Every structure is written in C-alpha cells, then in structure tokens.
C-alpha cells in the first residue's frame, strides 16, 4: 500500500511498465526488470504467462508462448518476484495474468505466495467483480491490492461494482480491444479519466495501445499513471542480449517525455 502511495505522487504521473515473466527465458527477466527501474519505471507489472491469453494482442501472445516454450513455471514467476523485491525494496510490483494459473492451487495459496514474494498487487484479466469470490477475498485477507480494470464499456451504473474491493490503483483500459493495437483518442481518454477520478480516490492509470513517448506524455498530463507494455515486449522480442540496455533507454525516453509534459502544464 505505501509502495503504491509513493509511486503515485501528486507531483508526477507514474510510469507503469509491463513485461511477461520468463520472456524469453526465466533467467533473462531479472535484468529486464532492473532495466525498467533504471529507466524510471515507478511500478513494475510482471506478466504471468498463460497458454490462452484471450485479452492480448499478437505481441503479448507471442511473449506468453516464448516464456512457456522456455519452460517457465509459476514457481519461476514467484522466484523472479522474490529476487526483484530483494533488489528493489521500494518499487511496487504487480502480478498480471489470467484466472486459471492464479487459482489452480487455490486463491489462498496464491495470495500467500504473493505475500512471501513481496508482491503488492494483482491484476486478473478474467475475474470481473461478479466473480470476485474466486480471488478477491484471499488477496484482501493478505493485504494484497486487487487492481481492477475499467474500460470504455464500464458505464456509470457498473463503475461502483468495479471500484468496490479494488485498491492500489484503477487501471483504465482506454480502448475496447486487445493489448498492443490501436490507441484511443486523447479527448476520450481525458473524459474517461475525469469521470473515473470523480468516482474514486485511488489513482487512475491509463493503458492499452500506448507505444511512444509522445503518447505517454499526452496521457501523463491528465492521468495519475501511464501503462506501457507491448512496446517494451517488442524490444525484448527483437533485441536478444541487448534487450536490457534498449529497454532502459526506451523507458527513460518515456519518463523524460512524461516529466516534460507535466512541467509545461504546471
């Protein structure tokens, strides 16, 4: 909780960076996570690979398959998380993934492992508020934030249900669609963020389709956080051994552009 509070500060927009754990191999992930932090990421989202990533576009689908192809197990993801926590005591770490790998050994088991590994929050794509008993109570009992998604289809009537029981931050999925493809128009993002911030006190981060420093900067003007995933995954996919350095440079370019945008509006 306090880690999220220091990441989402009033004086800046937090940069939230996603990579798939174990892509291309479990051994390669720690250096990539370190590069995210060195480049200026405020929150790290570690994807748990799944065979059937229904909400993801081609880039993250392939990252999932590369990871599983390299033999990544759930135990590896928790080992990566544990190592990250030891090296970065203050950076919030979020596990993101799908319901089945999270619940297969029981939600209590999963929540306890999250605590042991120093995980701050969990995003589960396919557990909407209607199925909250599957995972939410176990996480809350351990003090792990359940970070929910709000989307362009989440209307005013539904929003309270989405907010109920969520903590850490609210993840606004700016497009109705899968990860990594088109980006929403800035005007619609501004409207949505205003609507969400009127309904909740937790920070609102915006993601899906954010690929460039320019886009990140525009969103940083209005949102508490910006989420970037597929663009980083693409670097991991193409750069091989050079990936950490390239990822760090790219993340730094996002961070710099976001800070400039805030200075100008301030």
């Amino acid at each position, binding site marked *: 909780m306090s880690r999220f509070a220091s990441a989402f500060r009033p004086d800046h927009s937090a940069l939230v960076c996603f990579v798939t754990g174990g892509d291309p191999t479990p051994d390669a992930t720690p250096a990539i996570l370190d590069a995210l932090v060195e480049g200026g990421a405020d929150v790290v989202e570690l994807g748990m690979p799944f*065979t059937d990533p229904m909400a993801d576009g081609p880039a993250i689908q392939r990252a999932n398959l590369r990871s599983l192809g390299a033999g990544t*197990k759930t135990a590896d993801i928790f080992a990566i998380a544990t190592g990250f926590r030891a090296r970065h005591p203050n950076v919030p770490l979020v596990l993101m993934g*799908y319901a*089945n790998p999270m619940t297969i050994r029981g939600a209590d088991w999963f929540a306890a492992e999250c605590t042991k590994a120093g995980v701050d929050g969990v995003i589960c794509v396919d557990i*909407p508020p209607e199925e909250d008993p599957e995972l939410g109570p176990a996480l809350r009992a351990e003090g792990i934030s359940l970070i929910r998604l709000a989307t362009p289809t989440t209307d005013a009537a539904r929003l309270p249900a989405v907010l109920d029981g969520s903590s850490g931050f609210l993840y606004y999925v700016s497009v*109705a669609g899968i990860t990594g493809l088109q980006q929403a128009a800035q005007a619609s993002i501004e409207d949505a963020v205003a609507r969400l911030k009127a309904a909740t006190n937790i920070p609102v981060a915006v993601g899906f389709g954010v690929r460039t420093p320019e886009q990140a900067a525009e969103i940083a003007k209005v949102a508490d956080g910006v989420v970037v995933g597929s663009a980083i995954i693409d670097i991991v996919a193409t750069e091989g051994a050079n990936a950490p350095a390239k990822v760090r440079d790219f993340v730094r370019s996002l961070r710099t552009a976001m800070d400039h945008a805030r200075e100008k509006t301030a």
Partner: protein
Amino acid sequence: MTLINSLRTQPDDRGHFGQFGGRYVAETLMPLVLDLETEYRKAKADPAFHAEFDDLLEHYVGRPSPLYFAPRLTEELGGAQIWFKRDELNHTGAHKINNCIGQILLAIRMGKTRIIAETGAGQHGVATATVCARFGLPCVVYMGATDVARQAPNVFRMKLLGAEVVPVTSGAATLKDAMNEALRDWVANVDDTFYIIGTAAGPHPYPELVRDFQSVIGKEARAQMLSRVGRLPDVLVASIGGGSNSIGLFHPFLDDPSVKMLGVEAAGHGLDKEHAASLAGGRPGILHGNKTYLLQDEDGQIIEGHSISAGLDYPGIGPEHSWLKEIGRVDYTSVTDTEALEGFQLLCRTEGIIPALEPAHAIAAVRKLAPTMDKDQIILVNLCGRGDKDIFSVAEHLGVSL
C-alpha cells in the same frame, strides 16, 4: 402437493451450476454478457420469439427429426434395442443449426449487425454461415489453421455461404485457439457484433441458452418415444465435444429417474496419451469465461486436446456436464480414435447411415454397452451429425487414397 427437487432449474441467477459455470470474462465484455442475459430473459418469456424459432426449425431446418429404430445394428450387437435421434438429417447435417437459429434471432432482437463464430470441425461454422446468409448478416468464422486443412469441404461451404473464414495460427491452431480469437474480435467490436458460440460453454448465459435451444432434441425424442413405444428409454447416449448435443438430448430427461445417461468423450490415442476427455483426464479450472473441467497441467496451463474428430478435440466441456458428473446424475465414458473408426464403419454397414466421427464415438460406446443389456431395454443414441465432412479423414485413417 410436494414439489420435486428438479435437476432442470440450473444455473442459478449468477450463472453457476454448483461450483461450475459463471462469467469469467474481461471487464470490456462484462456489460455485453449482462445485456445478452437481459435480452435472453425477455426472449425466453416472449411467445413471438418461440413461434419464430419453432417455425424456422420446422420449415428451414426440417424438424422434428425422425426417431429411428436400428434393427440390424440391434441384432448385430445382440442386446438392448438401439434407437437413433436423427439430427444428422437436419439442414446442414448436424445439430449445430438448432442453436444457430436461436442465437441469430437473439442477435437480431438486440440490433446487432455483424456475426462472429468459432468452429472446430466446421459444422458450427457452416451452420452459422447458413443462418447469416438466411438473415443477410455478415459473418466471420474463426477456425484453427490445422482444422482448416483437415476440414476443407466445410471451409468451402462456409465461403459459398458468404462467410469470411479466418485461419487461426496461434497455439495448436485448433478449436480452443479459434475461440480465443473470436473473443478477441468480440472485445474489439463490442457495439455491433454478436458472438454465436457453438457449444454449451463460455460465459453465462451461453451454456444455458445453447442448452435451451438444443433441448429441442430431447423434447422431441421424449415425446416420440412415448408415442412410439409408450415408455421412456433406459439409457441415453451422446458424444461430447463441448457438450451441446448431449445436453440437448439429456436435459429434458434429467428429472426422469429411470432414464440413465451416458456422455462419451474422445479418448484420442488413449487416456494415458493424447486425448480430449476433459472429465476423465482433467480437473476444474477457468477458461473461456467459465469454470469447468479442463485438460491442464499443474500450473493451470491448458493442454491441447486430441481426437480423430475435429469437433471433439476441445480441452474443456460445458459447465453443466461438470456439475452433472459431480452430482452423479450422468455417467461419462470415453472411446479411442480406433474404436470410433470401428463404430463409424459399423453403422455404415448395418444401417446404411454414414455418421459423423463425433456420433461415431457414441456408437462405439453403444457397441460395448448394448450387449450387456436385456433385449427389452432401450438405448437412445443422438446421431448428431452426418459423415460427409469426414470421408476424407476416414479414408486417410483407413489407408485409402481418394
């Protein structure tokens, strides 16, 4: 008066069949499945909806399908009488069209203008393309690239009917991957698109509405049995991919305690090798919007199903079957590819009916079951599809080149 404890009132109002079912979808889709549920409740209560559904089933699909006593198969197996519910005679050659008629009427009620579907064997794809042509709606069918290759005749049929067939190359490129891709399309086209799911699975209310539309099979069969032989059958047998033809046959009989039921999963190369028997070889998990038995590893990663029949190689099963298994109302068994091929040929030779490879699994199970029963007992088998689509793959397995 006492009320019986009916087994026919599932799911509960949250879409759960016991611990199974539910609505495990991304937030973007949640408002859509809630809308669909609201609209389905209204349609279910609307006599005009039922009248249109019944009219299309009668005059377009060709219902009721016959109930047929199979004398030579019965004699050959030397036990119980074997009767077939002949849904292979439906327009488009399988039970799939019953469900597609119902869902396209719902889509039209909801003002949707674009239809998507997933398909394995291609039967559901053909049935969806058919109703789209009939109602003049554009249709996109997602089909695993592996299935596109092994079901070429159905791919051509869908194209003739005006559908766009999109080969899916992710994963093992079969039915599960086609369903992932259809869900991705739906998430990106939430305003105009209706997703016609082909089996009694997926997020609530799909398992319920697909079952309701397919229940025409069991309702007709029950009435036909009573009028032809004056009593109910002793055992119902049906093959299971996602479970729609079987739940359609079983559901109207669930409260008839004298009627036993047997669902037949695909054991592929054998339950200790590659197969598609989720109940026999899987355990409960969450995929494609519902909690149900799934083929998966210890980490919850989904394992691809395998079956000689493209319509059965799905690593999951509709949630109502998972519940019926756990409460013990329905028995489930499985037969291998080889046994299914034998069942296929047996029906061809004895009754002059070429079945699809899916019901060939049911016939293979009957071949083991019938001899253990008395001659005055009755087995009712769902002959849910015809074999035209399968002759090429059967020829290949029998080592014949066409």
